[in-house]
């Protein structure tokens, strides 16, 4: 079972701010879903290599060719706030 404190902790890790109602709802819903995950405990996975990907691709090599990137103007066009060639954000430290 997970608690409201667990939900608060996870929300903080995920950089989400939840209302009191949301905390209550998510505690209940996530609890039910996580309980459902528990069926996996019955499966013996001793010594089984975890599978992180559908393909067994390791290093993908390519030719080291010079290409022209789109340039910062086009990428900064979508920025919520900018200053010259930089993304502008609220203050980071005191």
């Amino acid at each position, binding site marked *: 079972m997970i608690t409201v404190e667990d939900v608060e902790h996870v929300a903080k890790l995920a950089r989400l*701010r939840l209302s009191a109602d949301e905390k209550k709802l*998510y505690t209940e819903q996530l609890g039910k879903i996580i309980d459902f995950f528990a069926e996996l405990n019955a499966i013996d*996975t001793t010594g089984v290599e975890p599978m992180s*990907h559908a393909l067994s*691709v390791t290093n993908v090599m*390519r030719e080291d060719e010079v290409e022209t990137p789109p340039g910062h103007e086009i990428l900064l066009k979508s920025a919520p706030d900018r200053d010259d060639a930089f993304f502008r954000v609220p203050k980071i430290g005191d």
Partner: protein
Amino acid sequence: MAATKNELVGRSTGDLRKLLKDKSVSSVEILRAHQDHIAHLDKDIQAFLCLTPELAEKQAKNVDAMIARGDELPALAGIPVALKDNMCVPGYKTTCGSQILKDFEPPHQSTAVTRLFDAGAICIGKTNMDEFAMGSSTENSSFQPTYNPWNKSYVPGGSSGGSAAAVSAGFSVIALGSDTGGSIRQPASLCGVVGMKPTYGTVSRFGLVAYASSLDQIGPFARSVEDAAITLSVIAGHDKRDSTSLSKYSFGEINYAKGLKDSSAEELVSGLKIGIIKELNGDGIDADVRKTVQETAEIFTKLGAKVEEVSIPTAKHALPVYYIIATAEASANLSRYDGVRYGFRDENAEDIVSMYMATRSQGFGAEVKRRIMLGTYALSSGYYDAYYKKAQQVRRLMKDDFNKVFSTYDLVLCPTSPTVAFKVGEKTADPLTMYLTDIATIPANLAGLPGISVPAGFGAQGLPIGIQILGNTLSDAILLKAAAAFEKTTEFHTKQPPVLLAQGK
């Protein structure tokens, strides 16, 4: 005699190609017919989030110029296509169904989209979807729900519900969707069209907004298997911009449509051994759907295939494995929405951490937050081994189960969706009930296998039922052959929903 407008809607790529080559119609006329149809009827279906008339006009005129010059026409010349709104097209918004991207105009174009456009396809518009492809009904779009063209009280499935509905309703000839846990195949089943998730790595994910990177795959929707195969042939292939795309040596010749039209159904399934997955054809699957699986098996037997029951013991655990792995990957992928570089930002925050939290809390909808938190939980200290690592281990066991079956069988059959389309609002209150609708589609994503859903019957309220065919890695061509054989032997794909029948009246 020039074809009238309403005769241009609901046609196959082959029909339209012939009309264009004969010069009986122009690409612009085909476009207009589809635009008129959308203008009259999409208000009831709400398949599209935005239309792209400027781009479509330019593309159609370009095709007409090619015809006038007598140029060789590329594979999809003049064919109207709809794109799920998680694929980037510069000049238009890519919202992913989310408030956090509601004004986002991408600087880049998806490779799959570029390949469609290079093949002469005409971009009709961007289709509705569950926010960040998280959902099974397209009710989780933050902009609008989409309704099932067969009956507007029912959902079209999801998350690519807009693309499925667009093809079903005749708003476009083909469409692209993305499939992470069934998001192409399930809505195809519920809307009575063909939908295919190719082998993982077949279609580049460059320019596709990421949900769960080890599972996401782009694929086609169409009203026939041949049109799906033609579309897949256009979009498949290695892309250096996606390091998980298969190398060109994996593919051989990319022509999935080869032989589909000219071979008989018997020739197409000759020598095939097909398994019916026991674990996905029992409890939790509606009687109507199980009957359809049985009837499909009989048809394949009649055509000369050897059909037997097979076992994938781990398939019944696919759901928890998926909802751990997909949400874990999503929690990492969606950390990029921080209000710094693009998308929505809350302007009132005093410092950067408050800005992140305010931005994300307002920008994401309830299901997206739920999945981000689930994934964060599964990856967090103290729980990683119990959830994430465990899920990855069961994923390996499932892949091993499939490998074992595919050492004897060429293909396997199972339902696409456990039920026909459900009512709008029926499953929105309980997330777990909604997750259960993906039970039969998820195994293919976890194992990276190709899967296709084809119309195979009608159930309650006359709503469509799809059958799912899965194959081994890179057996996409065999899958399409079997699907085409089934289509040649049955009439289900020829039935049209009321919305398509109503066009032009």
